[in-house]
Structures are given as structure tokens and as C-alpha cells.
């Protein structure tokens, strides 16, 4: 009995010469050519993710969070998109990898759950067929094996009566069930990396909580690494181990969930937190949204991309200018901001925290 417990605590052995994390993104740039110019959707992004961990990527629409993850899977349009930098999955380089290589990894070693389960499933084929397709392709399973596995997966994600429902079409499923089916589809080959792109945004709140619980349970069972993309900090607090806050195609703050939510350092993160309604809050108290609009990625503001919307620009000292000098995101816990650590902590405690209640 004791030995079993001991073994369970031994960390998984790392591969030979494996210096990096399981998923390691280094200096990722994703640029689109459009008629109006080059869109810098992702502009020098780096992050790491270990097996069994969940990274939450937070940001407004157009902050580059979805694009980042589409480029990990290689689902961008190669004709108009330029991806540079390094994406290492278990030591394997994905940027510039051949389409055949990516095909064999997609749905197998890395899988993705999309935002809108209504449009993300084809209306023309049964749920079972769509779930089973990657299993047949990657595992070379027979029709019968695939069907058994599909039913098993539907069962696992909590679809009642899986044996019958496997032959239903997506429109016969409710929104929550469709998202469960999507999850079954993503997990059918036990992927090591699961990217969930706002998987609960299109669902109502009770279903949201169920889906989040399901993802957590399945992660424990399969040990996958999860990248969880959302704009909802409430959801992130629930599922993630680490948080990466993105703004204008760059990471502006990084840390563990506890660190980022308890003591956020970047004024943009403060803005995100202040614009979130609280369950116990006063109904008449207005939310304080972040003023202005997200930056144009065609011509992002020079210096810190957030400076036109930031209320603390004048506080920066030491000869640095938010509109000219680009702040650097330090490795590990930190924020890409010119404010000193003391300033960040003082402003947050004195000005922001009281409003959060």
C-alpha cells in the first residue's frame, strides 16, 4: 500500500536530453498579408506548458490568442500567413513542418476543441462518424472497433444512451451535448496536448460548469496538457494552473493563477479584472470597462501597445516612455510594463483592489 502511494508521487521521468517543456513556444510571429497591409496577429510570443498542466490564455478579441493556437496545429492558411519562431511539441519542431507530418499529429497527439459546437460539427454526418474519423485514421482501427471506441468516448463525456445517440445527427443534440461530442472527438486518440478555444463561451452558465468539470476530470484521466483560451477570467480561475495575458498579439503578463488573480501587475490585467461583474457585488455599482478599443494589428501603437488606453502612463519614471520604449516580459512571473514593481503593487492595492471588493 505504501509503495503504491510513493510511486504515485514520483514525477514522470523526462525524455533523454529533454531540456525544454512539453510544449514550448519561442518567439512566435504570425503575420497575415491582407489588402490593407500586414496584420501582426502574433508578435513575438513565448510560453511553456508541461504535461498534465493547464495554461489559460486570456485576452480581448483580436489579441492573438486563437491565432496562436491555430498556428500550433498548423491550421492557418499557408498562402497568406507567415509563421516564424519555434513551436516544439515534445521536442518536435512544428513551424515549417510538412503538411503530412502535421496531419499525423492533429487529432492524434494534439487536438482542438472549438468555440461554437453548433457550427463546428458538420450537419451532414452522424455524430458518431465524426467522432470516430480520427480514430480510424490515426489508429487504423476497423469500423467495429471505431464504433465501440466512439460509444465508449460518448459515455465518458456523459452522453446518456450513447449506444443510440451515436447514430444521431448534430442537430439532434443540444448545445451542451454537442460540446461534449466535440470533446469526445478531440480526446478519442488520447492526445498529449489539448487546445480548448473558448469551449464554453457559446454555452449557458450551468452547462459551462459541467463542461469545465468534465475537462478537469478527463485531464486527470488522460494526463493531457491543456491550453485553455478564454476572455473570461472567472472560467480561467476554475481550470488553469498558469495564466498568460495577451494584448495586441503579445504576452503582457504571466504567472500562476493565484499570482495573477491575487496580485496582478499589468494595468491591462487590472482592467480585465475591473470589468468583470461579481456575484456578491452591488447591483447598482457600475462596472469599469477598459476605455478605448483594442489596437489595430495593422499598425499597432509604438512602444507598449496598451499605452493609449492606460491610465498610468504618466506615472512611469526613469526616462522610459510608454509610447516609445517597448516593455519586455521577464521570464517566469512578471508583466511587460514600465511601472516598477513597487508602483504596480501600490497602485493595485490602493486604486484597483478597493473597486474589486
Amino acid at each position: 500500500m505504501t509503495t503504491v502511494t510513493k510511486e504515485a508521487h514520483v514525477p514522470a521521468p523526462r525524455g533523454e536530453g529533454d531540456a525544454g517543456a512539453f510544449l514550448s513556444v519561442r518567439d512566435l510571429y504570425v503575420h497575415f498579408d491582407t489588402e490593407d497591409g500586414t496584420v501582426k496577429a502574433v508578435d513575438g510570443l513565448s510560453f511553456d506548458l508541461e504535461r498534465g498542466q493547464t495554461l489559460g490564455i486570456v485576452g480581448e478579441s483580436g489579441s492573438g490568442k486563437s491565432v496562436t493556437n491555430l498556428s500550433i496545429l498548423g491550421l492557418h492558411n499557408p498562402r497568406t500567413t507567415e509563421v516564424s519562431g519555434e513551436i516544439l511539441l515534445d521536442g518536435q519542431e512544428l513551424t515549417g513542418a510538412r503538411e503530412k507530418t502535421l496531419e499525423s499529429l492533429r487529432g492524434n497527439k494534439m487536438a482542438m476543441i472549438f468555440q461554437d459546437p453548433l457550427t463546428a460539427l458538420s450537419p451532414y454526418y452522424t455524430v458518431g462518424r465524426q467522432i470516430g474519423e480520427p480514430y480510424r485514421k490515426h489508429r487504423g482501427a476497423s469500423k467495429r472497433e471505431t464504433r465501440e471506441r466512439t460509444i465508449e468516448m460518448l459515455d465518458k463525456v456523459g452522453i446518456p444512451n450513447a449506444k443510440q445517440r451515436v447514430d444521431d445527427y448534430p442537430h439532434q443534440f443540444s448545445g451542451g451535448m454537442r460540446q461534449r461530442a466535440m470533446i469526445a472527438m478531440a480526446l478519442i486518440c488520447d492526445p498529449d496536448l489539448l487546445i480548448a478555444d473558448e469551449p464554453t463561451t457559446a454555452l449557458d452558465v450551468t452547462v459551462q460548469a459541467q463542461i469545465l468539470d468534465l475537462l478537469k476530470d478527463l485531464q486527470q484521466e488522460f494526463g493531457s496538457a491543456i491550453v485553455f483560451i478564454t476572455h473570461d477570467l472567472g472560467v480561467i480561475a476554475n481550470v488553469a494552473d498558469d495564466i498568460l495575458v495577451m494584448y495586441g498579439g503579445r504576452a503582457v503578463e504571466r504567472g500562476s493563477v493565484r499570482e495573477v488573480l491575487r496580485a496582478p501587475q499589468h494595468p491591462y490585467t487590472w482592467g480585465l479584472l475591473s470589468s468583470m461583474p461579481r456575484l456578491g457585488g452591488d447591483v447598482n455599482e457600475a462596472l469599469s470597462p477598459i476605455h478605448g478599443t483594442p489596437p489595430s494589428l495593422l499598425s499597432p501603437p509604438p512602444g507598449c501597445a496598451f499605452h493609449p488606453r492606460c491610465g498610468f502612463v504618466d506615472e512611469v519614471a526613469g526616462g522610459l516612455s510608454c509610447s516609445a520604449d517597448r516593455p519586455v516580459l521577464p521570464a517566469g512571473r512578471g508583466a511587460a510594463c514600465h511601472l516598477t514593481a513597487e508602483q504596480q503593487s501600490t497602485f493595485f492595492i490602493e486604486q484597483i483592489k478597493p473597486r474589486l471588493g
Partner: protein
Amino acid sequence: MLRFLIRRSLGAVVILLIISAVTFFLFYAVPRDPAMLACGKNCTPDSLAVIRKNMGIDEPIPVQYWHFMVGIVAGRTFAQGDCPAPCFGYSFANQDPVWETILDRFPTTVSLTLGGAAVFLFIGLGAGMIAAWKKGTIIDKAFSSFSLVLSSMQIYFIGPLVLALVVYNMELLDQPKYVPLTQDPGGWFMGLLIPWCVVQIIFTANYTRLSRSSLIEQLQEDHVRTARAKGMSSRYVFFRYAWRGSLIPIVTIFGVDLGSLFGGAMITEWTFSLPGLGTLAVKSVQNTDLPMVMGVMLFAATFIILFNIIVDAAYAFIDPRVRLS
């Protein structure tokens, strides 16, 4: 499905009634008297009255319409003889029974239509598919420009041009003609080859563009991206996911096109002097031949409506969402 068919058939009858009434009364709105035409130069009031009576146009127009409609359902008796249902009467111009003339002309039109449709579906969908697959490349641009040029062509221009080149100048083929398929399959094929190639030109261009744009739209759908995210190959995703969805607008247009072609490809038939329903319709209008005009008109309208119903039923096979709702 049965309820659907019954409801649509009843609707079809109403539409046909309206079409027949409009055609019938419009015919008399034109200041031409078919009896006058039949009577010739040495016409006396007496002989004119006899002709009118024989034609059945001595009665008030609503009464004539009533007799005509009853004749379709129950048959009627004319001076020329008995006319069993469905009776559209006898031609004013040459005394032929209308229904038999239509049945006689129909195989020509069907042969022309089906052959032409096979050509334009094959080339149009194929070219559209290649253009969508190679979107933005030289091939796509070439196909798109070419189809734009083709769709602005006219059959009465292309037809004689092809005839002049292929038949008279290069002498590769004989003058187009209709030989029944049952009589001589080879002759049927060779005789209709030029008309098939000419009748499809505008359709091919339209189907190329339709199939291309519909496919490109489908390729941007979320479920296509999902399929790629599962690791399915681009080819598989293209045919299984995108192509399937792109068929719906194509089937819709195809049903309408095929229905109207069955009513006679007037310009093509006229250009190549093929004895189909199209030439029949044009000639009957020229001859102020009311029974024939009515017959061809209702026959063509029936086909258009019939194909519309078939298209709606076909949706159920393509899209499971229609099947159950």
C-alpha cells in the same frame, strides 16, 4: 414525405390553373384572329362563321376556357373526331391533335436536355471544383475569366459559328439532326453532338461559377476546420465535408434549369432545326395556334413545377436536418 408530396401536388395544380388562365386570356388580348388566318383570301362572312364554329372560338372566351379545361380532364369531341383525355384540342394550323404532337416532339427535347445537362454538369462542376481547390492561382483566374466570357456568349451566335466551322468548313460532322435512340444509337449520338455542346455553353459557365463560390464558402465553414483539426487530409476534407455542403445551391438551380429545358430549349432547337418542343412553341405562337400554345405552355410548366418538387425532396437526401423537420 407523403404529406409533403400531396401538399406540393395540390399547390402545383393551383399554379397550373393560374398559368393556363393567364395564357388563355392573354392569347385573345392580341389583335389577331386565328379564324381570319385560316379563312384565307376569298373569305365570306358565312365561311368565317363555319370556321369559327369548327375551331370552337364562336363562344364567349370564359366558356371556351371552361370547355378547354374540361377537355383536359374528361376529353371532348371535335369536328375532326374524338379527343380522349388529356385533350388539348386540335391545332388551328394543321389540324394535328395537340397532345400527340407534343408526345411526338418530346423525345427530341429530352435527348437534347439530358445530353446537354450531362455535359454542363460534368464540365461545370469539375471546373468549379478545380478553381476552388486552386483558389487565387492562375488556374482559378483563367477558369473564372473564361467562364465569364462564355456566359456572355449567345447560342444564336455560337451555334451557327460551330455549324459553319465543324460541319461546312472542316466537314467533321453531319448537319445536326434527331434520330430516335431506339432506332440508331450511334446516329442519335452523332446527330446531337453539336447541339449538346452548344446548349451547355452558358450553363457550364454558370455552374462553374456557382460551384466555385459555393465550395469556397463551404471551405470557410467551421466544420471544415474541425475536420482538418482532426488530422483528416485536405483531399478528404474537400470532398467529404466541403463538397457535400456546396451541392445544395447547385441542386436548387439544376432543378429549375432542367425543368425549363424540358419545356424546350427554344433557341438551340431553332438554331439547329431540331423538331423539339422549343421549335413547336415558337411556330405555334407565330401561327396564332391557340391549342398548341396552351398545350406546350402547360406541358413545360408542369415540368418546371415537377422538378421543383423533386429538388425539394432531394434536399432531404443531402441534408439530414431537412429529413426530420
